């Protein structure tokens, strides 16, 4: 079985971001970029499944400008077998990405598609679900615990972290799984693996190759910083507090 893992190149989680002066987006110039942490977890899970013997190949795919190759190299250094880079000059919204992944899935025929539950730059939490819908495959999102594969029955058992607690699903393969934070701790890229990664292939594909319509129905109008938190006020007595709660905050 083949596992396809979608990885996204995003601004590093630890960076303090700034909005561009023209409000078209976040400033990504001279800022450290890394693989989306949830995608790292997704890739780690795929690698563990392969190491457990349930899959033959893990393919990492990234969609975006040429620097995405760096992210794919990280994926290969972690242990993915090969990479696919879909060239795109600007970043796409989830539906477009989902369409691209669907086209890829039609070509590659994976048994599982792993994605991070959301990207830390847009927090959409949509791509995985859309891919499943487009493909007509079952989906198990926010996977938080061991994903057990049953080879004969071609199904997987997934624990999902939901608001009410944990939900356990059994999904038939092929399926789409999106990963949550507590699923695993991704491995480091070791030197021997980095060395091996240099000889692993990264295939370049274009949108034309995949015959995807990238027209989006959504347009980002403006990106602004959240309003700065106003400083608090120290009140001198309980009466003053009640007064403020009543007349200023209007909560009493």
């Amino acid at each position, binding site marked *: 079985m083949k596992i396809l893992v979608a990885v996204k190149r995003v601004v*590093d*989680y*630890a*960076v*303090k971001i*700034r909005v561009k002066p023209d409000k078209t987006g976040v400033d990504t110039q*001279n*800022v*450290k970029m*890394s*693989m989306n*942490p949830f995608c*790292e977890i997704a890739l780690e899970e795929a690698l563990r499944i392969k190491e457990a013997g349930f899959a033959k190949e893990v393919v990492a795919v990234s969609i975006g400008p040429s620097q995405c190759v*760096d992210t794919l190299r*990280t994926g290969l*250094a972690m242990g993915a077998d090969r990479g696919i880079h879909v060239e795109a000059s600007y970043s796409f919204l989830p539906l477009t990405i989902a369409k691209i992944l669907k086209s890829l899935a039609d070509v590659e025929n994976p048994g599982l598609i792993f994605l991070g539950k959301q990207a830390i730059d847009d927090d959409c939490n949509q791509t995985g679900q859309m891919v499943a819908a487009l493909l007509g495959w079952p989906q198990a999102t926010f996977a938080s615990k061991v994903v057990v594969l049953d080879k004969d029955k071609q199904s997987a058992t997934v624990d999902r972290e939901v608001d009410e607690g944990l939900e356990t699903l059994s999904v038939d393969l092929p399926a789409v799984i999106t990963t949550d934070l507590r699923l695993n*701790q991704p491995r*480091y*890229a*070791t*030197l*021997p693996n*980095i*060395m091996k990664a240099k000889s692993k292939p990264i295939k370049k594909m274009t949108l034309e190759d995949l015959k995807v319509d990238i027209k989006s129905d959504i347009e980002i109008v403006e990106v602004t910083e959240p309003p700065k938190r106003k400083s608090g006020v120290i009140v001198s007595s309980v009466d003053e507090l009640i007064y403020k709660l009543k007349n200023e905050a209007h909560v009493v």
Partner: protein
Amino acid sequence: MMMIRRWRRSGDFLRSACKSLTSLRQKHNSMSPSVSGFVNRYESKGKTFESNAWNDHNRELDHHSCVGGNLWMMQQYKSFGSSSSSASKLQRNPLFSSLEPRDVSFFNEILGGEKYVVQDEERLETANTDWMHKYKGSSKLMLLPKTTEEVSQILKYCDSRSLAVVPQGGNTGLVGGSVPVFDEVIINVGLMNKVLSFDEVSGVLVCEAGCILENLATFLDPKGFVMPLDLGAKGSCHIGGNVSTNAGGLRLIRYGSLHGTVLGLEAVTANGNVLDMLGTLRKDNTGYDLKHLFIGSEGSLGIVTKVSILTQPKMSSVNLAFIACKDFLSCQKLLVEAKRNLGEILSAFEFLDNNSMDLVLNHLDGVRNPVSSSENFYILIETTGSGETYDREKLEAFLLKSLEQGLVSDGVIAQDINQASSFWRIREGITEALQKAGAFYKYDLSLPVEEIYNIVNDLRGRLGDLANVMGYGHLGDGLIEPYVYEWTSKHRGSISAEHGLGVMKANEIFYSKSPETVALMVSIKKLLDPKGILNPYKVLPHSFFSP
């Protein structure tokens, strides 16, 4: 008791190892002076330890030593008995006056009230104790001046009244230099924490001495600059303290020492004189460059109130690798190769040994060994440059070549800032882990690079089961008691690479400096501070100043 017996045994061992030292010490203290600092600590917490039957491990004498390029050696004492402390060996100078109510009134008047004149017991307790909980003074007063003028008035008064003082910053020092020995008045510059100016073209930052290092770094970050020094204590230490102790830190290999990066400073001497040496020029050859006297003087020549420092442009491409090496020789060779191959982008080269790694893994939460196999030595290599892909490739190429040549047995490269932080946590967390593990002796030594680990092996051989000896440090700077100091002296190293002499090593300076040099230092001290009120009992040997 078993504990005490072993302790005495080690005491004997140390005594025989360092005969010259015992002549300097009083006979009743059977431990070496560097060790006695710990006795002080345990005396106060004696009950806790003696009655604590943690585990057998603790009852043994553990010596942890950290060795670095400059070297840190930690010797951990888990057992101890009561003995005289170095402080009681030391006598309070009777020429110093004691605090009187009229003094407190005076300070209240010039500083503006109780807020700045602290006599509260709890706050004094903290201010009297050093970071390692090794030294504790008994000061009854802490002053918080807000301006240089206030510092000047305080010192002028204290000098006239013969009141001894201790300048204090973040109180993160490791040699007991920032806390009172007896009842010296604490002058904490924490309220003088404003940034005065920053030139975005030259990168010159002028600020007050009480600015916390991390805050300065945060201030510079959006402007695209970084401080030229970085240390584990950055969240608490003050730039004034860093300058006064000539702090080194993790970035010394790249940016050099404070003697190079500090362009000017303002200091107040013992009699209240304000010395304005606050230049912002890179080049200024006009007369004697007096600021260098204050840099590293540990508050004994004056209180630093303002600093002018050259900051460096921030380079966005930072890469970090965590490497495992089989033996120390490989580590040294790796250092040479790193300097050669990584050249201008090399920004840190740290090492730690197996014992250090085990200690960190055992005592800190959420820490794991980045390298899957357990090795003898671990190295952290950091590069900082402007070209992300180029730097990355350079580092990878260098490491892969080292792997092929057998210099490196395994390693990982951090893929994002989170991973990089976790690698640094291991190295920066060693001191913290040691604190949690229990009593220890920490030696910060610098030795010629090739000698560095020899002292650890040497000590391991001599101490055997008694001690857990470990080494770590800034290998890249070429940055480990009585036996240790002698060994260091014999091999032309420095007994205090970075942390200064403080009270811990005040009497040990002769291991690294000649008598003539020390005599001149004493003269300068007496010239600038005739009554010796600034940070007494520290830095220079007590015998020169006792009445």
